[in-house]
């Protein structure tokens, strides 16, 4: 029982982390508090659904198209919608308020377009749902795939951000955009790149999540909020932090469901989140407020 609870918690946490990691990049590096994030997750879910049901393309193969497409889409969003806000913001606080307002509008537009195309119905499809036994517990293969992606993306980006020139540059932009300009980093480009990359990761999350969750056009907000919780709890801009925060929440949820009361699973994630913030106001791996 315990091993099952932990294992299923880890897969659940992997999903949380997966969905959150793009946002931590967007918010951490590009400083865009993207309230439309969840909608872009859902868009990817719908595309995966269409690929699977109408075109017969397996979602994992679909990723080959969806990742570059969403990267491009988010690139355009940043260039067209967000660059003017970045340019006019005198400080981080102003950009935060402006980006909240602008992406709030974007949220409605994306949701509205989805609604016109797909209606308000629930959607779900069947892919990789066979059971896999590991460590004596049975888990659906699609969840393991999602977990695998989360770990690979989390660790991979951790390595990229810490070990490569471009990654270090992205972190430099996150730490201090003004100084980053002084070392020849094109901050606008880097922000745009990070935003687009974050968007591509949101799409990966959306595709993988759609393999095992029922979704509808109005569910984007749920993902945005979960992602925000994970991002803030893990420390803004910290990929590994997001991964660990996601896993903590997933395992806690699962243990509470098994040993206390499934009715408290969501409550417990918020309790943990609030406690983390009260004890460490900048998140598990966040730097002290500057």
């Amino acid at each position, binding site marked *: 029982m315990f091993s099952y609870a932990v294992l299923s918690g880890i897969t659940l946490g992997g999903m949380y982390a997966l969905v959150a990691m793009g946002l931590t990049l967007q918010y951490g590096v590009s400083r865009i508090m993207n309230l439309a994030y969840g909608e872009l997750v859902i868009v990817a879910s719908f595309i995966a659904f269409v690929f699977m049901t109408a075109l017969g393309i397996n979602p994992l193969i679909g990723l080959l198209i969806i990742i570059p497409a969403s990267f491009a889409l988010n690139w355009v969003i940043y260039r067209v919608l967000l660059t003017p806000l970045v340019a006019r913001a005198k400080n981080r606080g102003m950009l935060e308020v402006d980006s909240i307002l602008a992406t709030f509008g974007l949220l409605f537009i994306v949701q509205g377009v989805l*609604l016109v195309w797909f209606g308000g119905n629930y959607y779900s499809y069947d892919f*990789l749902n066979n*059971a896999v036994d590991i460590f004596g517990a*049975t*888990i*659906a293969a699609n969840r393991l795939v999602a977990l695998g992606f989360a770990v690979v993306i989390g660790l991979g980006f951790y390595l990229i951000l810490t070990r490569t020139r471009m990654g270090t540059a992205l972190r430099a932009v996150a730490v201090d955009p003004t100084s980053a300009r002084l070392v020849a980093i094109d901050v606008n480009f880097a922000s745009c790149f990070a935003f687009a990359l974050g968007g591509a990761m949101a799409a990966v999350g959306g595709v993988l999540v759609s393999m095992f969750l029922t979704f509808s056009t109005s569910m984007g907000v749920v993902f945005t909020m979960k992602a925000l919780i994970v991002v803030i709890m893990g420390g803004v801009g910290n990929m590994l932090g997001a991964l660990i925060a996601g896993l903590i929440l997933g395992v806690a949820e699962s243990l509470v469901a*098994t040993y206390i009361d499934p009715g408290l699973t*969501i*409550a417990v994630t918020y309790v943990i989140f609030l406690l983390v913030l009260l004890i460490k106001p900048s998140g598990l791996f966040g730097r002290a407020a500057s």
Partner: protein
Amino acid sequence: MHISAKLRLATIAAATTAVMSTATLFGANAQETYRIGYAISKTGPAAPGAATSTIPNYEMWVKEINDAGGLQVGDKKLPIEVVEYDDRSSSEEAVRAIERLINQDKVDFILSPWGTGLNLAVAPILDRAGYAHLAGTAVTDKAPQLAKRWTNSYWLLGTGEQYAVELAKFLEGLKAEGKINDKVAMIAVADGFGIELSKAGREALEDRDFDLVYDKTYPLGSQDLATIVNDIKALGADTFVAFSYPPGTLGLTEQSRVLGFNPKVFYAGVGTAFPLYKNRFGDNAEGVVSLGGASEDDPKIADYIKRHVEFAEREPDRWASIVNWATLQSLQQAIERAGTTDREAINAELAKGGFDTILGTYKPGDQTFWQVGQWQDGKFVGLAPTDMEGAAELVFPKPEWKAAQ
């Protein structure tokens, strides 16, 4: 040159709009249409439910009547004109939209919104303004009191107790036959609907000497139910009951399949009777039990399903959709019987009942429809009340889950 062309276009557009709006104004004055209004959740958490059970029915009903030339009112045929709003799944929006329909749009009749909370929110306003309220998608234990409180209101899906008791009676029969043991595992979504049904279910099952080996709730919005299924699997219950919402229903089914949890009776819903469920699980839906049901052999029902598929490009759900459709048929007949657009006359006809619908001879508010149903050969047939005409035999035990393709 360029500018003047644009200007001309704009002028033409403006003129057209003006002409059109005056046209509608005159049209409304001359009472050549019957104005139907509704406010429904096109966005927000209630949108999926509304899109499944209610909106296609409303739209199909209007289209069918208008295609046939309109409603027969006396010796005239009145086409239906629709005013619709999005209540955004919010009680406050719903209240305002209904006020707007009554006072601004002055519609002749108002169709109900989707869901218990929204129907309750608008009920007092409809009552005060003298509109009948055919609440097609509200399940509330207070249904009988509400019907008394607001005399023109009809709570068509009945009380949670009815479903729970009918299910318990049905299970009692199986137990008596020695088909299932006395252990039941029950899970409910922590929401008005889930709690009402689980509360009634708990009482009804315990009255019938069932042992509730698992009796918990999960929060609305929680989709990961793997641990719950895993816990229940170890308890040896022959009967699994989930009073859940569609995402949960699908999640529970999914996890039961993955974990190889094969109770003899697998009951889950809302959502099982949705076309989504069959599309999603295919053959694996076979034997799953839930609320609702349809006598699919009945030509009227079969015809309704066929028309629904043609109109909405998907099947109707086998629970609230059918009740909703029967209600709309009743409304149409009440108007025709009244022979006038006068609201009070129509209300009086509605109260009389005796309409010919897909649920047979129907009186709104009298719950004569399937409370327990089961997927059998791709059809969601009615099982209970067992004394209803066309009650199907239970497929027992539920076939084991097949591996995913």
